[in-house]
């Protein structure tokens, strides 16, 4: 074995082998660098950097403090969810897709389930109460997701207090998620055909209480940030992307609305009965980080409005089913919260284990084999907190998806980093990326 390294000579000493990196072409290399007049530096920001929103790697080319070129390096969180889903039943797919954009799990589930239902042709058979619960959960999720966007966005620009308030609000929402679905994140709560279980007794009252609390608490962050001179100087005219830029880059969500276009799929291509709710689409025309911040701030109030209306509708539909009537598709067991947490309801266990053999066979077949979905393909899009979450599903008529593809808004919108940041200062890159609000779980899937 050769001990000679091509780039470093070594010698043995009493303390071990010592390498000295000399020789080679180092001398000429350093002379060459000295000869260039530009001060160009290439900086790797990330993938482990507190202000790059997870494992995002930004490759910045700098001239002094000015950014001349930005490229994103992604893929560090690729988990192969789309591939895995091809090996599971349609229902199990929910458990996978909820983990893509982990800050907006309900939106992934909703988009996926709407697509499965469209393939099945049962879109109109979904019980009204199930759609109301879906809307309620999506809007709660929008609040918790926007809270992270605002909190971490502010934190990355140096404002620490907004993050504390934002996570307090997020905690309120996550408690509601826990009450409704049993889980705080990655709930797999929305299922093809409806939702996993009804809102628990007394749940609607708790949601109303939380809404009142959130409405008051949101003012804390508003007071801290809206009109704050330092905040405005850090965010105004930063990360500029106008409507033409958004269109050609396929950018949707708050970034598109900050360019002045009131494009919100909830209004324009309604799903889950969004046409029955009253709310406004928030826009600004500043095309900058401040505009996107304002939009997220004001969308919180719109979400609260929708949640209140959903609560009224839940009161009116109390006791109605939350799963499609077709027993060939509907999940056989309703879940229930027992003393030791959530699980199959005891009534159902009694039925399949002690009373009816047919029930057991039905349960077993549907849970292990799953239901068949007619062959074909669909594309379904919902308005997630980050933009259009689109699902392209292909079925070959079997019990598994043939292809599951998520058109993730984070993945798409992250492309605009170069357009937003090139020519700006390095400190503004952080603000611009934060305003896109990319979630790497969604980007890399």
């Amino acid at each position, binding site marked *: 074995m050769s001990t000679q390294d091509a780039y470093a000579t070594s010698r043995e000493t009493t303390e071990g082998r010592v390498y000295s990196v000399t020789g080679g072409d180092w001398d000429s290399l350093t002379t060459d660098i000295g000869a260039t007049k530009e001060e160009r530096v290439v900086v790797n920001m990330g993938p482990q950097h507190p202000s790059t929103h997870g494992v995002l790697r930004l490759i910045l080319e700098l001239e002094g403090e000015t950014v001349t070129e930005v490229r994103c390096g*992604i*893929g560090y969180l*690729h988990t*192969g969810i*789309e*591939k*895995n889903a091809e*090996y599971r039943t349609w229902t199990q797919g929910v458990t996978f897709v909820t983990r893509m954009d982990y800050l907006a799990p309900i939106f992934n589930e909703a988009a996926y389930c709407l697509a499965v239902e*469209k*393939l099945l*042709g049962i879109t109109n058979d979904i019980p009204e109460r199930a759609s109301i619960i879906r809307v309620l959960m999506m809007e709660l999720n929008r609040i918790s997701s926007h809270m992270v966007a605002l909190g971490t966005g502010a934190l990355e620009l140096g404002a620490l207090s907004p993050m504390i308030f934002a996570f307090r609000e997020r905690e309120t929402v996550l408690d509601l998620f826990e009450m409704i679905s049993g889980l705080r994140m990655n709930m797999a709560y929305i299922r093809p055909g409806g939702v996993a279980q009804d809102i628990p007794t007394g749940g609607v009252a708790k949601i109303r209480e939380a809404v009142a609390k959130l409405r008051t608490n949101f003012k804390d962050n508003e007071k801290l940030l809206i009109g704050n001179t330092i905040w405005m100087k850090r965010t105004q005219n930063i990360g500029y992307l106008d409507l033409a830029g958004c*269109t*050609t*880059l*396929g*950018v*949707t969500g708050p970034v598109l609305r900050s360019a002045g*276009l009131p*494009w919100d799929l909830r209004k*324009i*291509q309604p799903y889950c009965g969004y046409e029955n709710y009253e709310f406004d689409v928030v826009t600004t025309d500043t095309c900058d980080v401040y505009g996107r911040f304002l939009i997220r701030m004001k969308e919180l109030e719109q979400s609260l409005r929708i949640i209140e209306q959903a609560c009224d509708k839940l009161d009116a539909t109390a006791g109605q089913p939350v799963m499609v009537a077709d027993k060939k598709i509907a999940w056989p067991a309703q879940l229930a919260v027992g003393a030791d947490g959530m699980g199959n309801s005891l009534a159902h266990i009694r039925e399949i284990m002690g009373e009816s053999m047919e029930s057991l066979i039905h349960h077993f*077949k549907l849970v*292990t*084999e*799953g239901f068949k979905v007619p*062959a*074909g*393909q*669909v*594309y379904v*899009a919902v308005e997630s907190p980050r933009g*259009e979450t*689109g699902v*392209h599903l*292909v079925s*070959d*008529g*079997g*019990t*598994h998806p*043939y*292809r599951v*593809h998520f*058109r993730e808004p984070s*993945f*798409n919108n*992250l*492309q605009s980093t170069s357009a937003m940041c090139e020519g700006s200062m390095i400190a503004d890159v952080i603000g611009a990326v934060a305003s896109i609000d990319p979630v790497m779980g969604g980007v*890399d*899937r």
Partner: protein
Amino acid sequence: MSEAGMFGAHGTGDTSGFGGLVRSAAQTGSTERPYGGYFDEVTDDLERAYPLFSDAIERVVVDRGELTLYVKRDRLFDVAKILRDTPTLRFEMCMGVNGVHYPQDSGREMHAVYSLLSLTHNRRIRLEVCVPDSDSHIPSLVEVWAGINWHERETFDMFGIIFDGHPGLTRILMPDDWPGHPQRKDYPLGGIAIEYIGATVPAPSERRSYS
């Protein structure tokens, strides 16, 4: 092939029954006019704006309220440009492209599926391009919609479809030196065996007849 799996399972190890299903990717046939909704308008307008329509569009399929135009790859770039620029069509946004692998569809194994969105008219359509596995080249549409850049890279990464004219067609999600294209049907589910002291849990693709 040895079928002995985890926990002493023999054969396929499959207790669910779906392991025996023969799966074939069914393709919906061409749809006859009228297509319904705005689909007739879109196809008519495209036909007017693009004289080579009958040559470029192989099939028109309307299924579950969605319109799919099967485009020949040589004409894809022109069709895309006309769809974007014609005032009556105006598909300003391309929501992305993704691949689907149909190994049984001989001579057309690789499909690239584009979803287009018109902000002006609030319409959605889908383009599908089918190419053989042995010659999976499709013209890049980055010049038409810049935002398709990463989507084409992902499709290349996952399926090996080569988008000619792309400014930098490199892997995007998998490591640069990764062998193979994971989303193809001939690529196993994969995974890494988990090792404990004295025991090993096999990788997912080794556990059952997932292949």
